[in-house]
């Protein structure tokens, strides 16, 4: 890469070669920065990056491998690509509950889908290779940080005040001028700019913002904590995210509580906004649609006092009542129950009526509870109906005359009814809106009147002990980022034997530092500091 001036794309400021951040607006200019390490001596303050020396044991080799920035970036890239691929088809928790995932992906997305499934992309965040990649990322972060951070820390904490003349001349900001009678006013002026002053004979080291150098390491610590927190999610008891499907009126065990706690769905409510109210969403409401204002499950929370075995009925003691609404979960211990969704697709009961051949309704309607059907229904004084057979998901009539069901779910119910009038009886097969006479010349018809659905509330059972780790990790990460970005590590070396030698270094924002220094220098009667980059530019222009 040849050295040339860089025009900032953002503000048009002409920056000297090698600039990383635009000196005017601060935009990142040189993305090749990391590849040109050699320019970057001061990053680790000239100390040797440990791994760049020599390798011995297998552990050393592993270590050195993972200290490489290239390896670290490759791991991050692999994780990113994997995460991107993981969005091509839905993750497993989005496919219908209960279906075989292998078949589902094959059927819906073909061979690619099957490949996706067999490589674990359908459950990306818990696939073994994704976990390994994250572990390797952690190792890479730790190794690279220790390898660079410790030598940096040592060299920064053991700085010597006295520097060789060549060191001064090699700094970008340099000034060699006539020594004044008294340097103390200059030093004081810098000390008022909050520089810490160290003195060794006639040499001074002024320093501020050293913390800036540790920004990346603070930020890496945050990342490690974040990775640790997400690892804990796989540890038993640390993290629970389960679905609880609860029909109105039913009591169910709360998953992962080992049968200790039960919850009953007393009532599920959907409230809508009042159209006459005129307060909110008036426009949408006037277009005729109902807007839901509240999803709510009224629950009773029980503790099971029986420690008995599977299948035996629990001994429930009522502990609490609560109305779970969206964003208002019910909490007990470290668990929380959230309102997630609801389902009213399952049939609960069906109502029928009997009519005679001329179409007159006879007696009362009768209702069949599909969960636990009764078989006798008295319709009127003379006439009763006998439910001879019921199939929740009608498939066919078997050879022995019984109804065969394809599944136990009432999605296509069929019934065989016997209408009894004194001594006479007649049979008919009834599917919803479709009836077939079994006996000939039936006098009575049974008609479908209506159906009632189960209202089921879907709750999410959550428990998460990893949040404190992840949140702390993230806060530390952000602190590290700000420390590294907004604090500048500025050092000034002054030697006052013979001439006055003055050199300055900063890890970023030379523009700002130059301004700060020149302000002080000029107010103390000195000339402005020389910037080597400017000089080089001028030289080049002359040529």
């Amino acid at each position, binding site marked *: 890469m040849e050295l040339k001036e860089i025009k900032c794309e953002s503000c048009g400021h002409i920056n000297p070669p*090698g600039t990383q951040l635009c000196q005017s607006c601060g935009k990142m200019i040189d993305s090749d920065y990391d590849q040109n390490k*050699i*320019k970057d*001596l001061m990053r680790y303050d*000239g*100390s*040797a990056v*440990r791994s760049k*020396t020599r390798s011995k*044991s297998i*552990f*050393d080799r*592993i*270590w050195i491998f993972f200290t490489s920035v290239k390896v670290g970036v490759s791991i991050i890239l692999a994780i990113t690509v994997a995460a991107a691929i993981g969005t091509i088809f839905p993750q497993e928790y989005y496919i219908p509950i209960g279906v075989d995932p292998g078949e589902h992906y094959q059927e819906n997305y073909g061979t690619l889908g099957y490949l996706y499934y067999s490589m674990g992309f359908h459950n990306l965040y818990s696939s*073994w290779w994704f*976990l*390994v990649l994250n*572990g390797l990322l952690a*190792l890479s972060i*730790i*190794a690279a940080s*220790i390898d660079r951070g*410790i*030598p940096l820390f*040592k*060299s920064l904490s*053991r*700085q*010597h005040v*006295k*520097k*060789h003349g060549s*060191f001064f001349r*090699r700094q*970008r900001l340099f000034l060699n001028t006539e020594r004044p009678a008294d340097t103390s006013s200059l030093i004081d002026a810098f000390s008022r700019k909050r520089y810490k002053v160290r003195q060794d004979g006639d040499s001074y080291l002024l320093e501020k913002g050293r913390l800036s150098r540790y920004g990346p390491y603070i930020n890496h610590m945050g990342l490690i904590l974040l990775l640790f927190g997400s*690892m804990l999610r*796989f*540890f*038993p008891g640390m993290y629970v995210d389960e679905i609880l499907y609860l029909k109105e009126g039913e009591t*169910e*065990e709360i998953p992962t509580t080992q049968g200790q706690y039960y919850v009953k769905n007393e009532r599920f409510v959907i409230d809508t906004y009042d159209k006459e109210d005129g307060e909110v969403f008036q426009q949408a409401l006037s277009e005729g649609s109902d807007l839901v204002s509240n999803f709510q499950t009224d629950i009773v929370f029980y503790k099971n006092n029986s420690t*008995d*075995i*599977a*299948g*035996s009925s629990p001994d429930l003691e009522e502990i609490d009542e609560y109305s779970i609404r969206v964003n208002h979960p019910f909490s007990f211990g470290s668990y929380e129950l959230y309102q997630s969704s609801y389902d009213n697709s399952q049939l609960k009961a069906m109502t029928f009526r009997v009519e005679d051949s001329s179409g007159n309704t006879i007696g009362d309607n009768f209702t069949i509870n599909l*969960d*636990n*059907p*009764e*078989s006798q229904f008295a319709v009127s004084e003379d006439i009763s109906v006998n439910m001879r057979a019921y199939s*929740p*998901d009608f498939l066919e009539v*078997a050879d022995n005359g*019984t*109804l*065969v*069901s394809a599944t*136990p779910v009432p999605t296509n119910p069929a019934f065989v009814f016997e209408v009894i009038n004194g001594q006479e009886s007649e049979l008919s097969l009834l599917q919803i809106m479709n009836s077939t006479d079994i006996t000939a010349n039936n006098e009575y018809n049974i008609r479908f009147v209506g159906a009632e659905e189960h209202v089921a509330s879907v709750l999410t059972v959550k428990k998460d002990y990893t949040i404190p780790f992840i949140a702390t990790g993230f806060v530390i990460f952000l602190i590290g980022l700000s420390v590294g970005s907004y604090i500048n590590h500025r050092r000034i070396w002054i030697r006052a034997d013979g001439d006055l030698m003055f050199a300055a270094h900063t890890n970023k924002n030379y523009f700002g530092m130059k301004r700060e220094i020149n302000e002080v220098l000029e107010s103390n009667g000195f000339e402005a500091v020389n910037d080597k980059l400017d000089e*080089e530019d001028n030289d080049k222009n002359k040529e």
Partner: protein
Amino acid sequence: MRKIWSYNCHDTVIQDTFIECYNEAMNQNDRQVINMKGRTRNILRVSIIVTIALLIGITLWFNLTSGTKAVEVGDEAVDFKLTTLEGEEIQLSKLTEDKGVILNFWGTWCKPCREEMPDMNDIYTQGHEDYEIVAVNVAENEQQIRQFISGLSADLEFPIALDREKSVTDAYNIGPLPTTIAVNKEGIVVKKQEYQLTKEDISTFISESTE
């Protein structure tokens, strides 16, 4: 060769020379800064690599074993208590005190279940002094079960346990129906089959459970 503003020791090919050059520029005394005591360094490296390898291993192990675990051959059978269609209460551990037990998880809507029932019944009625069959119905109502039995040529002699809440089915983590499990007198699962039983299969189940 590139000319770079800060030092003269830039484009040196060999790292060590480069570092030395730089250190001279910094200060002769600074050189010792670079050295970290070798032993501490090795302990640190080894312990970090080993710790991370262990943590990855543990996480993978938890991840692979966390999935719902089905009861398999060699496992201890989960004890349970259920009510039968006749209203009696049965408990597995009481049955296994003196008999081998065959658990048959079934549903009336499942064709192979319907087909194997009469076969099981035939063998059962020929004598069952040393074993017991428990047909665990998965979450159906009595009407459905009675309707199914009424369609059979002979009544089922063995008890039909009602698992209405699916608590036993879940405890055994039953996948497809029918699933048949043989439990011996020690309460250990000795055989498991996840498809329809032939008459020979039923006999094998019986002999294995009574061994």
